[in-house]
C-alpha cells in the first residue's frame, strides 16, 4: 500500500444515464510513469478530474499516500489538462505567480522556482510579455511550468505533447523523465503509443468506462506475447528448409531488413516448445542470421484489447 502514491478504489461516476466510469481501480506506484490509456470517450478525463477533485465520484474513493484525498491535496498535484490555456491578455510573469499562489506557494518561492524554470527552458525575457504575443509552442512551455512549478508529488499530464513541435515535445519528454528521477510520480494520459513505449513503466487501459487491462508494461507485454520468433536463415535449399520448418511449426510471413537475401519468416512456438529447441533445430537446417522474439508493441496491445472488448 505504502508503495503506491495514488490508489483509486472501485471508482464509479455517472452523468445522468451515462456511466462514465464503472468500478475502476488503479494503483500508481511511487516514482513511476503511469500511462492511462484508452480510446476517446473511454473515461480517462473523468478519472483524472476525479483525482483532481474537480468532480466527485459517485462511489469509491481515492487515496493519496494512503490517505483519502483532502482539499489541501491540490497542492500535491500538478495537472496539465488536455483542454488548456492561459489568460491571453495577462503578462506571463504575473500570471504564473498568480497560478502558483493558488497552489499554495508563497510569492517569493514562486519567483525563485520560476527563475529556475525560465533558465532551464531558455525562456529569458518573456516575463512582461502577454500570452497572446507568444507562439502556441511558447505558451505550452509556460503551461508546463505552471503545472510543475509547485513541485507536486503527483503530476498528471493529459495529452501533454499535443501542440508541441518535435523539438519541444522532446524537451518536455526529457523534463518529465527528469522529474520522475527526482522523485515525482507521473500519470500520463495519451493516445500516442510511441510515447507510451518510451516513457511508461506502468499502464492501465480504460475502455467503455471499464478498466480492461493494467500492470507493469513489461508484464503486460509478457502477457500478450505470442511465443513468436522472427527468423532469418541462409540456405541454398530454400524450399526444402521451408517445408521442414512448416512440418514442425506454425509459420507466418515476415519482413525485416538485413544484409543478406535471407529466407525470412515468423515462427510461432506451441506451449511445449522452448526457444532453444527452435534454435537448435534451425541451426541443424541452415545458417541462422537473425533470431529475435517478437514483442508486442503497446500499440498492438491497445488495438487488440479494444477490439476484443
Amino acid at each position: 500500500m505504502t508503495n503506491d502514491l495514488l490508489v483509486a478504489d472501485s471508482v464509479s461516476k455517472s452523468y445522468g444515464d451515462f456511466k462514465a466510469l464503472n468500478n475502476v481501480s488503479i494503483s500508481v506506484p511511487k516514482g513511476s510513469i503511469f500511462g492511462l490509456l484508452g480510446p476517446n470517450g473511454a473515461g480517462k478525463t473523468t478519472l483524472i478530474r476525479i483525482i483532481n477533485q474537480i468532480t466527485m465520484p459517485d462511489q469509491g474513493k481515492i487515496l493519496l499516500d494512503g490517505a483519502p484525498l483532502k482539499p489541501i491535496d491540490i497542492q500535491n498535484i500538478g495537472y496539465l489538462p488536455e483542454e488548456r490555456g492561459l489568460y491571453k491578455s495577462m503578462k506571463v510573469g504575473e500570471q504564473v505567480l498568480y497560478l502558483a499562489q493558488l497552489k499554495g506557494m508563497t510569492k517569493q518561492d514562486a519567483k525563485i522556482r520560476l527563475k529556475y524554470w525560465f533558465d532551464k527552458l531558455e525562456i529569458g525575457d518573456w516575463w512582461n510579455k502577454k500570452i497572446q504575443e507568444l507562439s502556441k509552442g511558447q505558451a505550452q512551455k509556460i503551461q508546463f511550468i505552471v503545472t510543475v512549478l509547485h513541485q507536486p508529488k503527483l503530476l498528471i499530464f493529459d495529452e501533454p505533447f499535443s501542440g508541441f513541435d518535435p523539438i519541444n515535445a522532446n524537451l518536455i519528454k526529457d523534463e518529465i523523465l527528469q522529474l520522475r528521477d527526482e522523485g515525482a510520480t507521473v500519470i500520463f494520459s495519451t493516445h500516442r503509443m510511441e510515447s507510451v513505449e518510451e516513457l511508461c513503466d506502468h499502464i492501465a487501459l480504460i475502455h467503455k468506462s471499464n478498466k480492461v487491462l493494467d500492470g507493469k508494461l513489461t508484464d503486460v507485454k509478457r502477457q500478450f506475447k505470442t511465443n513468436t520468433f522472427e527468423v532469418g536463415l541462409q540456405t541454398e535449399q530454400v524450399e526444402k528448409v521451408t517445408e521442414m520448418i512448416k512440418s514442425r511449426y506454425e509459420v507466418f510471413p515476415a519482413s525485416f531488413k538485413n544484409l543478406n537475401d535471407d529466407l525470412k519468416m515468423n515462427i510461432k512456438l506451441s506451449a511445449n516448445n522452448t526457444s532453444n529447441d527452435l534454435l537448435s533445430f534451425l541451426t541443424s537446417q541452415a545458417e541462422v542470421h537473425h533470431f529475435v522474439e517478437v514483442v508486442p508493441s503497446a500499440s498492438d496491445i491497445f488495438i487488440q484489447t479494444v477490439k476484443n472488448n
Partner: protein
Amino acid sequence: MTFVSPLIMVALIAVVAYLSQLNNDKERTIAILDESGLVSNIFENTEHTTYKILNGVSLESAKDVVKTEEDFGLLYISASADSTKVVDRVRFFSDESPSLSIISDLERKIEKKLSDTKLQLDGVDLEKIEASKSSVNIAQETFSGEKTSKLDSYLKLGFGGAAGYMLFMFIIIYGNMIMRSVIEEKTSRIIEVIISSVKPIQLMMGKIIGTSLAGITQFAIWLVLGGVLVFVLTAIFGISLSELQMPQQQMMQDAMADPSVANEVQVAVQSFFNLPLANLAIAFMLFFVGGFLLYSSLYAAVGAAVDNETDTQQFMMPIIMPLILAVYVGIFTVIEDPHGTVSTIFSFIPLTSPVVMLMRIPFGVPIWQQILSLVILLGTFAFTVWFAAKIYRVGILMYGKKPSYKEIYKWIRYS
C-alpha cells in the same frame, strides 16, 4: 477608461447645454396683421422675439413684406363683425414650421385677451376677478409633528428613484462584466487549470465579490470625478446646467417670488434632514449589495452555460425582464402611492424588491417590512448561488453546442 469616462460624460453634458443655449439665442421677428383690431396691443417684445405690427395692408402684401424682410412668420387675424368670434380666424404663416412653444405662447396670449374681452362685454369687473384669485397650499404635517410639503415628496421621489436606478445600472453593467469574465475563462481554456486549484463555488464567489468591489470603486470614482468636473465646468464657463430644464426652472423662479413658497423651500431644506437618512443609507447599502449579489450569481450561471457572448441572448431575457419590471413598477406605482398594494408586494418579491424597496424607503417604510424583505432577498440569494453553482460547475467544462433549458435542468440534477 475609469478616469476618462466621467470626463467624456461631463463634456457631453456641457456640449448639450451649450448647444441648447445657442438654440434659444436665435432672435426672431414675428409680424402681426390684425384686421379685427382686438389683439394687436397684447404682444410685448421679449429678449428673443420681436413683434412687428402691420397696419392697413392686405394679407398678400403682408406676406410679401414678411418674406422680403426674412422675418420668422406672420400671425394673421382676419376681420370679423363679431369680435368674440375671432377664435377660428387666426392663422400663422411661416417658411419653417414653428416650434410648439412658439405657437402655444401665441395661443395663450390670444386666449387670455379674448376671454378678458368677453368677460368685460358681459359686464364683469376684471379687477375683482384678479382679486378673487386665491392660492391654497396645504401645509402637510405628520402626526409626530414633522412638517412636510409637496417639494418634500419630490425630494423623496428623487432620492428613491436615483437609488433604484443606480442599482439597475450597476446590475446591468457589472453583471455583464461577470458574465464576460466567466466566458473568457472558458474560451481561453484556463478554467480547468484554475478549478484544479480552487473549488468552482470559490471561483464563482470570488468573481462576484471581486467584480462588485471593482465596480463600486469605479462607480465611486465616476460619481466623485463627475461631480467635481461639473462643478469646475459650471464655475469656469458659466454654463448653467439647470438651463437644460427651462420650464421647471421658470416654475421655481415664479415660486420663489412668492413669499409663501420661499417658506416652503425652507421646509424642503428642513425636510431633507427629516428624511430617514440613517435608514436610507443603511438600507441602500444592504439592498444594493443584496440585489447585486442575487443578479450577479445568475449572470455567472449564464456565462458558464454558454461558450460565447452571442449565445447569451436567450438566457438574458429572464434576468433582464424582472429588472426592467422592477424599474417600471417602481416609477409608476411608487409615485402614485408608495404604500399601495402593488408597490408593497413588489418590494417583497426578491428579484424586484431591491429596486422597488429602495424607491419606497424615503417615504418611510416600517422597519419590519424592510427586514422581512431583506431576509427574503438574502434567502433567495443563498438559493440562487446554490443553483448557479450547480450550473457553473458543470457548465464551465462543457464546450461546443449551446445548451437548451432542458439540458441545463439536467446539469442541475446530476451535479
